[in-house]
């Protein structure tokens, strides 16, 4: 029965490892409230026009929110570091995918003598359906 004893002993020693990290109630609430505040910030900040910076500002706030969710709600801050590495590899791959596509998109005109064309079938929606927007139509409110 020697192996059994060894097994039992190793279990005893690992008892402390299997104790999962419990995120304190206060931390959970603080993260939740911060996320709600940042949502208000996102809405509030969208009123201002920063030109090309609009997208960067909104995505920065969104990424801070996403970081909080991943770190505290998804426990990545307390978990095995390997999970974080996997996530970062995935995000780098996604960034390469989108950035390289955008480089292609932006440099097309210098290679080809045409730009993205209208989709012919639906190009002139109003004419095709014989629908004209009413002259006195109220501009969309935001």
């Amino acid at each position, binding site marked *: 029965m020697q192996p059994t004893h060894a097994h039992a002993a190793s279990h005893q020693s690992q008892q402390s490892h299997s104790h999962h990290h419990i995120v304190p109630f206060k931390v959970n609430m603080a993260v939740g409230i911060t996320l709600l505040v940042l949502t208000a910030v996102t809405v509030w900040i*969208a009123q201002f026009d920063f030109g090309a910076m609009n997208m960067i500002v909104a995505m920065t706030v969104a990424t801070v929110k996403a970081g909080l969710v991943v770190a505290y709600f998804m426990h990545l801050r307390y978990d095995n570091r390997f*999970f974080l590495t996997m996530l970062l590899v*995935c995000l780098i*791959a996604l960034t390469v995918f989108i950035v390289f596509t*955008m480089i292609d998109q932006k440099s097309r005109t210098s290679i080809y003598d045409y730009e993205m064309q209208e989709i012919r079938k639906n190009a002139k929606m109003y004419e095709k359906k014989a629908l004209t927007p009413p002259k006195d139509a109220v501009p969309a409110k935001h």
Partner: protein
Amino acid sequence: MNGVTNLAATDRRPETPLELHAENHHSPYQAHHFTDMAQQFDAAKMGMWLFLLTEILLFGGLFCAYAIYSTEHAAMFHSAHKMLDWKMGALNTVVLITSSLTVALAIRSIQLNQRKAAIWLLVVTIACAAVFLVVKYFEYSHKIHLGLLPGNFYHYDGSEGVIIGNNPHIYFGIYFAMTGLHGLHVVIGMIVLGWVLLRLIKGEFNSEYYTPVELGGLYWHLVDLIWIYLFPLLYLIG
């Protein structure tokens, strides 16, 4: 008690899983190919994370489509996004963040063996998911009513404000594809959390074993994560 479970009554070596469990003093939840419960829990979580990463890449394709078309049709996107009601989007953001918080607290409760609290927190989470879908239903039915639809189905007559620029159906194609796929995830999340809730009510989870609660929670947080990006992209910037 018969001799099968009572080892003292038999001379033979332990053979059945039940006997081996009793012999080796490990948790009845632990599968034999894992060293310990912590390793088993980490392996399960790693599998879930790998799945979530494929989900991120799945939505990533749609985010890339959004990036291409929004740069190509910047004016049309800006004009078309005003057709969405940002108040509805903001309400749904608040609902999803609340549900993310409650599911995180539900996991905390089961870690502390507070089963009743965990059950109620999961009920609130699923209720929030339902509220999200109801709000989405009102938004969708309004868009469908106005004819703000993808591709050939687009037949908006400008009655609620003119959209400047050509091909506005592209914006609504992206809107419906992204929110539709996200909405499908909300429905699947409700089913997964509903199943977790049923097992929780049956008393199958405790502080030692709650892996499905944790993994269901991870899935639900991903649904929240995607929406955190969708909301400003579709409702606020355009």
